[in-house]
């Protein structure tokens, strides 16, 4: 069911089969992810769900960034030729940031407030590209230019609080690109930004994905945005993928949960006295058998 509308030309960048995460040992422990399976190729894959549906846990589980109380199991977690299940912490250090990168939600928290922007990007340039001195500075300015920041020499010397939210988000993307990653996991990258800035940032991400051949995992709770921007969507509910569809066909969603989410959006073309509020069917939370999830 998951793979039926994927058109692979190449082997997937990332292959996930029956990934489960639980917090704690007891029988009533939180099962944050349950048998999540998907493939990621060079595409924009949207992961949509409400808060608590496990979408951020999924991003962190791929990078093995979960705290030690989290118990992770998977039948496959394959990144290119590497099996991430058995990867040691030392192996993960070579992957995190350089092969698989993450863009966080809020640049205000993810950037170091006491460091100049140029030095912050420079840190990742010297770590991944082993550049020093003027070569490093040149590369940093190049990266800032590639995310369409004007006046790069001036921005180089600024501190994070001196730039706007949209610019901060571009700076984070610039430092991500220093390493030339294969996969970018973007966790709500635009929810701290306003509409016009958001549009520009998405265009930028889109260009980067197509020109660098990057696989993008785009985590969001915004249905309209996901439909517009992504190629393929996975809808998550209480730790499971309940529906997988081509983004353009979101309005034809079959699962009642997806339909409920869509119905509760206010619409410009439809006047309603009250917004329909979703009634949650306990059946949605029951385990989907792992065979059927394939």
């Amino acid at each position, binding site marked *: 069911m998951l793979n039926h509308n994927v058109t692979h030309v190449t082997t997937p960048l990332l292959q996930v089969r029956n990934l489960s995460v639980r917090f704690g040992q007891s029988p009533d422990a939180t099962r944050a992810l349950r048998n999540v399976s998907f493939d990621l190729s060079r595409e924009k894959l949207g992961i949509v769900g409400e*808060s608590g549906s496990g979408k951020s846990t999924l991003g962190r589980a791929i990078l093995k960034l979960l705290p030690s109380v989290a118990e992770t199991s998977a039948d496959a977690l394959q990144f290119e030729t590497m099996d991430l299940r058995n990867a040691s912490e030392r192996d993960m250090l070579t992957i995190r940031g350089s092969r698989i990168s993450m863009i966080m939600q809020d640049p205000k928290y993810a950037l170091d407030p006491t460091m100049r922007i140029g030095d912050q990007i420079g840190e990742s340039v010297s770590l991944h590209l082993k550049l020093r001195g003027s070569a490093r500075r040149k590369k940093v300015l190049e990266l800032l230019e590639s995310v369409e920041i004007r006046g790069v020499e001036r921005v180089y010397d600024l501190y994070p609080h001196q730039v706007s939210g949209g610019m901060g988000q571009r700076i984070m993307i610039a430092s991500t690109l220093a390493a030339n990653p294969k996969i970018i996991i973007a966790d709500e990258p635009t929810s701290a930004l*306003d*509409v016009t800035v958001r549009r520009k940032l998405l265009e930028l991400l889109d260009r980067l994905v197509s020109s660098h051949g990057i696989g993008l995992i785009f985590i969001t709770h915004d249905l309209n945005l996901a439909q517009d921007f992504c190629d393929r969507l996975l809808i998550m509910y209480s730790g499971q993928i309940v529906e997988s569809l081509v983004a353009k066909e979101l309005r034809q969603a079959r699962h009642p949960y997806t339909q409920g989410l869509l119905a509760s959006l206010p619409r*410009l073309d439809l006047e309603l006295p009250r*917004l329909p*509020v979703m009634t949650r069917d306990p059946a949605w939370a029951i385990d989907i058998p792992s065979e059927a999830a394939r």
Partner: protein
Amino acid sequence: MIDVQSLELSFGRGHHRVQPLAGLSFSVAEGETYGIVGESGCGKSSLLRCVGGLETAWTGKVEIAGRPAPQVRKGADCRTVQMVFQDPYGTLHPRHTIGLALSEPLRAQRMERSTGKIADALRAVGLNPSFAERFPHQLSGGQRQRVAIARALILEPKVVLLDEPTSALDVSVQAEILNLLADLRAKMGLTYVLVSHDLAVVAHMCSRVAVMQSGKVLEELTATDLRHGRATHDYTFELIASSKLDIAA
């Protein structure tokens, strides 16, 4: 209920002078929900802060419930207008229980503080009174926004200013909060000013909408005009177009 005439606000001087509000006028009738849209930095939040009494250095005229509102509000003047902010987590003290957060405005206004009153306030927004003993981090985003609404309403205001009240919430929770706000307006005869970047939310909640750009009201539309794209300024068309794109299936 609200009458604002040539409201101006500026910070700094000389070369560094910025003017978030450049002479702005509008009025809102009792029981109405008035929407304000525009991109960030156009002065939407500054406007709410002036009407709500959080900014003091403005010039012009602000009249609320037939009485001129002074720049610096004191005592009972503070009760008439209350505000609900975008991020409920940022406005609740992390180490104060919900009950304490709700009793704070009562204490500041030297009003009666009883557990009964706090329980009523929680019930009015659809929360169980037992929430009074919890801390903000033990609540979901939607529950926290309900607490923020309860805190605004506990002083029995006439006007509630809503600054992006649902943009931090999931769509299903957004629907619940918007319905709650509509119910409370009908029940308590409230007047709302709603700031949002989401035109669909504004069209759903409001009867009239002001489009703001660089500290001025560019134009005023009715919700029906907004739905049918009957605007006069290019900027408004651009706003409508960029949100219509999202909806096109």
